[in-house]
């Protein structure tokens, strides 16, 4: 059984790696976007599993993007390494901020992360000498000289890393610690879990993923700007995706990202303005009618039929 499962993984991996052969450039670009959102949605969900809801994805995404571009431009570091540096910058920032902010819970944490994302944006916009100010910075060329196949491999790697990280979190002791923090923090504390340490750890890891994704995004499009890189979309869309697919699961956010990413590309063609409307409607409907998301609801149904 085990071997056949690994074989399946390998077949899927080979299929994913060779995908550029079967698809055109446009479709590949759509898949790139979906893969980027998979990484963002998963990283958001990983933090959510500890009960902390972050509205600051766009902040770390933007910081990672700017850091990657600036490391490349000012220090001449190669794009690939600078993307990693972008993740590192976001992680360090998250660590510094998290030491203070992770004392907060619930809506206070959510609002503070939203405010922090805005603060990062304002700071970057007001340092024109370093960041190019409101106009942003343009790179001389996109990563891999714009090769769509290599770009695809890059974002695929990012998405796979996030999936592996998420599965790692779900299958090790960390999973129990995080879940117990979410369910009842006092119980978690009294069973000897260092709540704060775990929260900081998860916050830093997920921020690193978001920063790296931001760095990759910046290098793929060769451009960063305060409004573009810190766009609310990078906060809202991953949240809507994770919510739709099913929270607290690895494959939930992935499914949500694939569904919503494809839908939004389609809608962009038909409704150029206001295609985000669908996201709002999906968030509202999901919360009202099936707060567990698609996979969560399916899982419950299956469990019911099993026992009943």
């Amino acid at each position, binding site marked *: 059984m085990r071997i056949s499962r690994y074989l399946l993984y390998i077949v899927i991996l080979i299929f994913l790696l060779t995908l550029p052969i079967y698809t055109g450039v446009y479709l590949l670009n759509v898949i790139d976007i979906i893969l980027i959102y998979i990484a963002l949605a998963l990283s958001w969900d990983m933090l*959510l599993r500890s009960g902390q*809801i972050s509205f600051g994805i766009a902040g770390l995404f933007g910081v990672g993007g700017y850091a990657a571009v600036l490391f490349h431009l000012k220090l001449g570091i190669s794009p690939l390494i600078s993307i990693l540096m972008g993740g590192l910058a976001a992680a360090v920032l998250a660590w510094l901020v998290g030491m*203070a*902010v992770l*004392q*907060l819970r*619930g*809506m*206070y944490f*959510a*609002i*503070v992360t*939203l*405010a*922090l994302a*805005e*603060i990062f944006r*304002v*700071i970057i*916009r*007001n340092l024109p000498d370093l960041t190019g100010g409101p106009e942003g910075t343009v790179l001389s060329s996109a990563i891999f000289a714009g090769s769509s196949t290599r770009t695809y491999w890059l974002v695929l790697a990012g998405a796979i890393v996030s999936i592996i990280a998420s599965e790692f979190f779900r299958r090790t002791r960390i999973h129990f610690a995080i879940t117990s923090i979410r369910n009842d923090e006092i119980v978690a504390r009294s069973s000897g879990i260092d709540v704060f340490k775990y929260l900081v750890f998860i916050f830093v890891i997920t921020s690193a993923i978001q920063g790296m994704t931001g760095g990759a995004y910046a290098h793929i499009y060769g451009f960063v700007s305060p409004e573009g890189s810190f766009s609310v979309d990078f906060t*809202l869309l991953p*949240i*809507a995706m994770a*919510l739709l697919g099913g929270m607290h699961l690895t494959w939930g956010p992935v499914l949500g990202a694939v569904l919503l990413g494809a839908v939004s590309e389609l809608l962009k063609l038909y*409704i150029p*303005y*206001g*295609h*985000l*409307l669908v*996201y*709002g*409607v*999906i*968030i*509202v409907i999901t*919360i*009202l009618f099936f*707060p567990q998301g698609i996979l969560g609801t399916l899982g419950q149904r299956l469990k019911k039929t099993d026992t009943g």
Partner: protein
Amino acid sequence: MSLLSKLKQKSYQIAIISVVLAIILGFWKPHVLIEGIQRACLYAVIALPMALILGIVGIINLAHGDFMMLGAYFAYFLNVYTGMDPLLAIFPALFAFFLIGIVSYKAIIKYVLGAPELNQLLLTFGLAMIMEQLANLFWTSRPIKLSLNYVSSSATIGSFTFGTYEFVYIGAAIIVLAGLLLFLKRTSTGQAALAVGQNPRGAKLVGIHVDRTYLLIFSLSIALVGAIGAIFMTRHSIFPLVGAPFTMKSFCLIAMAGIGNLLGILWCSLILGLAENFVLSFRGYAGWADILFFALIVLVIMIRSRQRQVK
């Protein structure tokens, strides 16, 4: 008694210091003082209905500013199609947004009252998105503005000229604040609403219709904020995202004043409005004014959580 007099002295000291500061500011940068107060009252009048919802219904309405945006568009189109003055449009706006409030409460908000905070936040977030994108879809993101004669009226004292029309914000803030305080303290419905805000279960036990109170307060707040949109659009250009920053700013003011402290919102918005205009008045640093609110919201929440932990 001695403690009481001390407290009184301290509040007197604070009052005296702030008056002195205001006078110094008035001589040094009169623009900052006048425009700061006007701006502060705009913030306060928008934050008050949100505070009402948060204090009594217990929901953070992240779509708050977007209701104001819709109110502004409402007044705009009323003016375009019927020629009604936006300031008169306040009254139809009150009525229309009371209905909108009822509908959104019955259709959406009611179902998440007992849900976890996360769901409430996400739901109102989704609602905000729907409203912004609908506005974007129907009216595009192009900013629009009415040209009204009376808006640009001004007064001159010595060599210093300032706009007088913006005093309408101060009037609106005082009317809304006084009206709400009177409603909550003096009428039996208002007192019932306060009781529901303090303890819904206890209120239910003594025979208050909790659900109807929630409905009333929610719709009332939406009506107020819709009407404020009508005032807002006389002076500012409007576009689909115009309301979103006000949601954050309102929440910041409420967090700073403390939930349930309506009068405190006015003082906090005065501090913030003046501080923001003060930063704006330095050429080259105006871009940093945006950060004040956000820095403050982080600071206030951190300090308050620290205080709670110490207790």
